[in-house]
């Protein structure tokens, strides 16, 4: 009875795949730069969840180490990204990705 509901790694992997897809949709659909950036964070989190579930399933601590590095890199990205966004907002009140059309051509 319970065996049918035993949690396998694929449950975690599917949860991660769902989060990744939600993040990807958000990135495509939203125009607000800060929210788009949050969607990227969702995707990175899905990646981390995948790594940790594999670390568990494979009995390999390497997956957890990878997550550690992903976290640090994500932190660096956030710092730089918000720096860029602040620099842009200083020049204009409200920025959406559509404003980037200035550069298209």
């Amino acid at each position, binding site marked *: 009875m319970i065996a049918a509901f035993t949690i396998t790694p694929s449950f975690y*992997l599917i949860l991660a795949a769902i989060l*990744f897809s939600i*993040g990807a949709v958000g*990135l495509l659909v939203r125009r607000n*730069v800060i929210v*788009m*950036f949050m969607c*990227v964070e969702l*995707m*990175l989190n*899905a*990646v981390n969840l*995948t*790594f940790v*579930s*594999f670390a568990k*399933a*494979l009995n*390999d601590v*390497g*997956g957890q*180490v*990878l997550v550690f*590095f*992903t976290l640090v*890199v994500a932190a*660096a*990205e956030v710092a*730089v*990204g918000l*720096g*860029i*966004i602040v*620099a*842009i907002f200083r*020049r*204009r009140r409200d*920025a959406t*990705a559509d*404003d*980037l059309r*200035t*550069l*298209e*051509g």
Partner: protein
Amino acid sequence: MNPHVDFHAFAPEIVLTVTIVAVLIADLFTDDSKLPARIAALGVLGSLVPVLTLAVDGQTRSLFGGAFVVDPFSLVLTGFFLVAGYVTLLLSFDYIGEGDYYQGEFYVLLLTSLLGMIVISSARDLISIFVALETITIPTFVLAGWRKHDTKSNEASLKYFLIGVLSSAVMLYGMSLVFGLANSTVLVDIHKYASGHTPALFAVAVFLTLVGFAFKVSAVPFHFWAPDTYEGAPTPVTAFLSVASKAGGFVALLTIVRLGFFPSGNSWQPILWVLAAASMTLGNLAALRQTNIVRMLAYSSIAQGGFILVPLAVAGDVRGNAAWQAVVIYILIYGAMNLGAFAAVIAAARRTRSAEISRLAGFGRTNPAIAVMFSVFLFSLAGIPPLAGWFAKFVMFRAVFDANTTVAVVLGVIAAVNSVIAFFYYSGVVRRLWFDEPAAGVELSSPRLPVGLSAAMGLMTAVILVVGVYPQFFARLGEIAFQRG
């Protein structure tokens, strides 16, 4: 139980790291604006010294269970990155100095990106490759937006940033699946895994990883950020992005395909084939229509990226190392040509105060020296002998002939057609330089060129001429890179 650490193997990285810290401290304590730049340049040259001693020593050093390997391949590319970084510094000195930008910080970011590049040439596992790739990219997000009072530069940076983080998320997801399937992050183990029977998920994992790389090397259809970012960023940064940072992506791609995914040819070859064909064709067609020289070079570098992908895409059918050698030789030559071309653009823009191609009309009559070198770079990009560019194209086509399968030959034909198309827009600029009358009202004032800029152009011209006439020089480097040490 402590691992043996071979400090000689890390010496280039250590010297560069010390330099970064020294630049930061020097910038903090002195008002002398030239000092950080001098330290940066000295440090980059200093990092070349251990590269040479390691090359003389010649033995392959494998550390941390094969995660970090110093072999001829990594030494050749480390040397390339350091030289490219030095030339970028030469281009930046006056541009950054005159523009009232933050100088010390600029060099810190540039050198950190360079550090990522020299690490990536030795990295042999997914974690090191990912971390090094991010170390290359994240500082360049900031550098692209360095002219922060310029809307174009802001947006160049934002666009590059969003695409950059998206691509790392996609690439990481692919890597996580590779890790889960292969049960290791070290490329050697992934190679073993790929030799056996792999589930369909592995192909998806490879696909996601390669899509991430395609963004980084701006291959079509993941290229749309490149022209805007190149145009908006300060020009020396554009030179750096289009040469060093792009080459960093290619080196990682080469390493990961050659040492990791290689046995599972069906999963990566079709993807690279499509990327190569699309990049060459669309890059060249878009370049034909550009009126801005920086945008033209941006599309041209997308197309050149496609040419670099050609030998990679056919590598599965090439016996021996010819395809890998072709990639490395193409990267080395492309670096020299493109750095030179951007140096010439900077030099020309100092006179014409514009990046429009039409403003270059008659430039050859007023500034013959710059125009001659500019023409050399452009003709070399077009692949005309006896300039180095022909040899890059030659090794690429040789790899295609070695592969000698139908798909490879089709790709070769596409590459040949594209070489012809490319000739039109490169020669169009050269014609402007020499045969058009200067437009009325264009004052070609001629203040003296900064020494660094002239040196960079001279150096790149010399490399292109020497390699064009004696291609054995780079051919040998390509051979050495894949020798068993």
